[in-house]
């Protein structure tokens, strides 16, 4: 039985609006109590969280683990370790593996795999992700599927999408839509705009996303089912979701850090780590995404963590598979680009990264209320550091942010009350200690450099 007392941190819990300096006691896998000056149980580990943010463990609702099929790129275990390194204690795994997760036994395989954090399987919407026949959603939900998605490829037929929404609503799960009109996208590899005109790369217009978002919103409205739009990237999509919400349609959406940090002009470097789907958009889209995050239109920030081997990415731009890793940079990119710039405050960041995605997925996470699972992220919001490839624990290193200077970093992750990740050199020594000595003056030392 592990007891951990986190002392003197800024405790942020968006589930009940808490934002104050409080101690937090985690006992036997769950939040035991919180308050000022909690008595140290004799056998408890003490964490001095002074100057740190103590938040519910992050919930990344859009992750690609490559197991089964491409274990060279990521396994469930390696992805979960990367998650813990990034403060993510619950992740939702997309089903576009090989074979895809479209049967109860595969759902159980993902759910029960050895992992440092909670892995919640998302099951395929259609059998084999082919967009034709619905999966056995009731049994998949019973086996542990938290949502259904054919992410990576859109459900092309409006009829199939309609039936999927209706059926998923019956089993009480949302459909997560990869909204893309592939005919209009026409195998494009970058956003259509001046940058694509100059770069000569095949363009994909914003309309390819927005037409599909419109369709899916209309179907959600018509069926009353719950729709979650994945990786929203354009100004038009944000506006469509904003209006749908105003109309009372049960739609939620997420965006990813790369859609508020990078734009299509960056793609002119032909760096294949910048090839993502949907593509990096124009400056005006980036501004609209930030506005959507600020005003609450966008519910969640997810990584769309998509590991790819170096061999697969060291090719011509249009031959590279889309996707970048992101589990470990989810928080730092949010703090660096949104919190530091004043677009949102830290409590709103925690809501976007934890509380809200937990409620969309209907999982036990995103709160530090007594009795809740002992999933905690301790964040140093003032740590300026440089991301190096060696620091990344994911099996794949396909991040365009390697070399970037970031502000804010997770220093301790508790998953079900146990230490899942602990910053080694933080605070001039161990972050977790069994005594209460004040830590030495911390220096901003890039870890392992």
């Amino acid at each position: 039985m592990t007891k951990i007392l986190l002392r003197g941190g800024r405790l942020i819990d968006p589930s009940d609006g808490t934002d104050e300096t409080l101690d937090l006691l985690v006992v036997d896998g769950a939040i035991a109590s919180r308050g000022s000056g909690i008595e140290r149980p004799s056998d408890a580990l003490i964490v001095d969280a002074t100057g740190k943010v103590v938040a519910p463990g992050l919930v990344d609702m859009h992750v690609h683990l490559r197991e089964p099929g491409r274990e060279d790129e990521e396994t469930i275990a390696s992805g979960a370790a990367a998650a813990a390194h990034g403060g993510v204690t619950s992740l939702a795994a997309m089903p576009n593996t090989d074979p895809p997760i479209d049967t109860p036994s595969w759902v159980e395989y993902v759910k029960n795999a050895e992992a440092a954090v909670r892995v919640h399987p998302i099951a395929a919407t259609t059998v084999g992700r082919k967009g034709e026949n619905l999966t056995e959603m009731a049994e998949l939900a019973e086996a542990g599927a938290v949502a259904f998605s054919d992410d990576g490829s859109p459900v092309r037929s409006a009829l199939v999408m309609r039936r999927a929404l209706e059926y998923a609503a019956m089993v009480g799960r949302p459909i997560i839509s990869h909204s893309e009109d592939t005919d209009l996208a026409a195998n494009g590899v970058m956003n259509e705009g001046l940058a694509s005109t100059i770069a000569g790369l095949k363009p994909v217009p914003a309309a390819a996303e927005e037409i599909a978002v419109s369709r899916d919103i209309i179907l959600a409205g018509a069926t009353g089912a719950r729709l979650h739009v994945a990786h929203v990237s354009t100004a038009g999509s944000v506006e469509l979701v904003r209006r749908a919400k105003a109309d009372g349609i049960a739609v939620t959406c997420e965006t990813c850090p790369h859609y508020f940090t990078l734009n299509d002009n960056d793609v002119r470097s032909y760096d294949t780590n910048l090839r993502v789907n949907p593509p990096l958009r124009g400056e005006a889209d980036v501004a609209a995404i930030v506005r959507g995050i600020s005003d609450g239109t966008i519910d969640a920030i997810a990584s769309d963590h998509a590991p790819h081997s170096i061999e697969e990415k060291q090719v011509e731009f249009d031959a590279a598979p889309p996707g970048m890793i992101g589990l470990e940079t989810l928080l730092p990119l949010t703090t660096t680009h949104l919190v530091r710039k004043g677009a949102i405050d830290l409590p709103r960041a925690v809501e976007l990264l934890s509380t809200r995605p937990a409620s969309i997925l209907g999982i036990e996470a995103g709160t530090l209320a007594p009795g809740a699972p002992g999933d905690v992220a301790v964040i140093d919001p003032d740590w300026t550091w440089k991301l190096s490839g060696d620091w990344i624990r994911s099996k794949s290193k396909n991040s365009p942010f390697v070399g970037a200077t970031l502000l804010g970093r997770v220093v301790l992750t508790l998953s079900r009350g146990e230490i899942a990740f602990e910053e080694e050199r933080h605070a001039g020594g161990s972050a977790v200690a069994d005594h209460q000595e004040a830590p030495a003056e911390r220096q901003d030392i890039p870890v392992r450099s």
Partner: protein
Amino acid sequence: MCFAQCLGEEQVSWTRKHLLGLEGVHRDEILTILDTAARFREVLDRPVKKVPTLRGVTIVNLFFEPSTRTRMSFELAEKRLSADTLNFSASTSSVKKGETLRDTARNIEAMKVDIVVMRHSAPGAPHFLSRHIDASIINAGDGAHEHPTQALLDLFTMRERLGGLGGKRVTILGDIRHSRVVRSNLWGLKALGAEVTLCGPSTLMPVEVEQLEVRVTTELREAIEDADVVNILRIQRERQDGCFLPSLREYTKLFGIDRERVADMRPDALIMHPGPINRGVELAPDVADGERSVILDQVTNGVAVRMAIVYLVSRIRAAERIEEPEILAEVKP
């Protein structure tokens, strides 16, 4: 006698290791290339069309896409300069068989090649290569991105006929969207102060191109009537398939240049084409072979321009080598 010495006395403003495109290439750099090419152009009219300038320099022509004239033009340019040349024609299918561009290139580099002249269907492929190997890269066309030597030979031909390009009106006509020739021409023409008009069907016009300070129109007459140069692009038959064009017949009717259209142009306007020509589609045969046409001059000038580029890039490599410690000195007795 020594060509390098003749040129060395002049102000040569070229310090680039690679020629990946004309975007960002300064006016002085372009003029250096054109002036250098003018000197090489004289060589081509000599009875012995060869100079020993690049003896010992090894150049590989790495063509991942079928090309006849550009590859021949480069090969001839390299041979006229006495470089050792290798031709590597990789079909895209061999890439599909498993060998990556990086591996292909590294294998070639292991053979101690100084310069890679590269044609590839993927935009950015030469940029990718330049990050992975030490040889200088000359872009001989990368997808719909750039084709800098084609633009340079176009500029050379225009300058030869018009004197200079400042204030001259140049119209580029045809499939603007898919053309690497357009993009390179655009940067080069702007650098030299020309006014550019792009004309073609709306489906073949890339978005937001007007932001590059060019005139964009779908009206052929408007595009050609006051032009000093009309540069006509090849229209590819495949463009009917992606529903870009209803038919080549209608394309010819709307945008084809024939004798009647020539009558709308200024009497001294030049007609150019990067080749190969679809006779009777974008250009009528009698116009292609007519007195306004400088199409064959472009081909001749292409060799001179490519000699200039290969020479200037080699010159930079030689200069860099001199600055490095003399490794051979240690093994010499």
